[in-house]
């Protein structure tokens, strides 16, 4: 396996856009005065003529993106998740999703790991907002290599896509030599039948560490990485429910509206099993260093391991 890199997925995203733009002339990147933070600045430096800073006006930015797409371009509109999906929600709903325009929306600084900026900038509802829109694909990649491939898939997919980016530098765990990204397909990272842990985004690696450390206790948990929250891989969820009998979801998002609900929507109709939800429990965050907050909110290896242990041992 190649060396594990420690990189924020926002940076991987900026790198991927730059790479893709070399061959795809239709890509146009928009930002709302946060290019240095969302890392679209990497693209801007290489392709200044195809970069447009819209200023601090996210609603207009999404409308401009819609117009660009209607005229045949592939616009990528980036800002913090709070603003690209929250502030501009209705523009996305009516000007992007309803006409099914080929717009890619990036939401950086998503989740509690945004850290010190506090509650106003820690978006915990972006996946819920985007998931309710008909025809919207929702991606939440877990590490550098996955983000590189997911960005490529997003650009190649014809239709609106939301892609969630993290601020925090995190260790990669995927092996680029064997990694394969398929839109809408979950990835089983660890086999086991005692319980199925279904995780998405930054916390996948925390769940992975927890699952691996529990092997020594004789607990064999299955671990599934869901990078595409919509359309969710129904097959992998149903199989997990049937074979493991219990599910734990892990996400850096409100437990309402995100991965947990997407999983429950499948299990409740296809194979009802108990689902334990690890996430931010319907509340706002607050300021603090990212890893401290992740720890406090129960999103690191330690708490995930404890929950798995409790669920398995009943």
């Amino acid at each position, binding site marked *: 396996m190649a060396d594990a890199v420690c990189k924020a997925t926002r940076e991987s995203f900026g790198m991927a856009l730059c790479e893709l733009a070399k061959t795809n002339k239709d890509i*146009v990147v928009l930002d709302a005065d946060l290019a240095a933070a969302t890392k679209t600045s990497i693209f801007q430096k290489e392709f200044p*003529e*195809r970069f*447009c800073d*819209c*200023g601090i*006006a996210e*609603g*207009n*930015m*999404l*409308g*401009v*993106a*819609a*117009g*660009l*797409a*209607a*005229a*045949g*371009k592939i*616009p990528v509109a980036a800002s913090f998740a709070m603003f690209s999906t929250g502030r501009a929600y*209705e*523009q996305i709903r*009516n*000007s992007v999703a*309803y*006409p*099914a325009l080929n717009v890619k929306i990036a939401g950086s600084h998503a989740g509690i790991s945004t850290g010190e900026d506090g509650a106003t900038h820690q978006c915990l509802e972006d996946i819920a907002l985007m998931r309710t829109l008909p025809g919207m694909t929702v991606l939440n990649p877990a590490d550098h290599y996955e983000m590189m491939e997911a960005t490529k898939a997003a650009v190649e997919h014809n239709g609106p896509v939301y892609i969630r980016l993290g601020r925090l530098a995190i260790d990669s765990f995927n092996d680029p030599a064997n990694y394969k990204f398929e839109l809408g397909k979950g990835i089983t990272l660890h086999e086991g039948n005692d319980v199925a842990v279904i995780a998405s985004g930054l916390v996948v690696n925390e769940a992975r560490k927890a699952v691996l450390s529990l092997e020594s206790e004789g607990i064999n948990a299955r671990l599934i990485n869901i990078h595409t929250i919509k359309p969710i891989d129904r097959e992998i969820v149903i199989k997990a429910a049937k074979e493991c009998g219990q599910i734990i979801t892990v996400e850096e998002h409100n437990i309402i509206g995100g991965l947990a609900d997407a999983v429950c929507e499948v299990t409740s109709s296809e194979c009802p099993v108990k689902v334990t939800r690890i996430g931010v429990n319907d509340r706002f965050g607050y300021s603090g260093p990212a890893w401290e907050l992740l720890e406090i909110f129960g999103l690191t290896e330690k708490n995930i391991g404890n929950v798995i242990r409790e669920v398995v041992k009943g």
Partner: protein
Amino acid sequence: MTNVQLKILAAKARLGAVIGTYYAKSGHPGGSLSAADIFTYLYFNEMNVDPQNPDKADRDRFVLSKGHCCPSLYAVLAMKGYFEWDELKKLRHVGAMLQGHPDMKGTPGIDMSSGSLGQGISAACGMALAAKLGNNDYRVYTVLGDGECEEGQVWEAAMFASHNNLDNLVVIVDQNGLQIDGTVEEVAGIEPLDKKFEAFGFEVEKIDGHNFDEIAAALEKAKATKGKPFAILARTVKGKGVSFMENQVGWHGKACNDGEFEIAVKELEAQIAELEAEI
């Protein structure tokens, strides 16, 4: 096309809006009638479009930012040959091609879905930017309501248009002076609108939105203006062409009943007959 020919088409567009909303038992005749002359001029005397090939890449684009006024736009598109006139009678019905607000996916000739106020002008900016990026020389036209100018997004878009030197963009404000809750000045007060657009970097022209010579002259001036976007503030009469609708707040969003329909049709047909007699 002569002014008389344009006037006939505009009167027919008004008739189409009255028919469409009557059969739908709902819709927005007031603003449809105020903007009918502008739509007619754009599609019959200004824009490079081809109804046989509605998606051709180098066509001029039109975005109806005040999407609720689509009934008369639909009538203009029907007369231009994008679809059959009889589609108007199915406006807003289940399964109809003509939705209550413009739907680019289902209606030939509609370049952008719209209806949520303030959003169309941003999409028009995006189209104009795409033309600039691709070195295409097509132009983009968008019609806004004056009440719509209360939306903050209009001004975000206006800033964007001038910052990006979108001289291929023409913003036309249908200034009929009325919105749902009353006159625009009573409700929220957007004046001085010309100074606002000027301050946002536009070249501005104020015209009578029912006078084809003034519409033509403003659009020519827009074409000659380089380096900045152009705004045409078109003073209009809401409900124009139907006596009992003119300047009445109440005709923003309701359809004629049977008796009103009969009168409206009679008035518009009389205007058409009178104009046809001039030819």
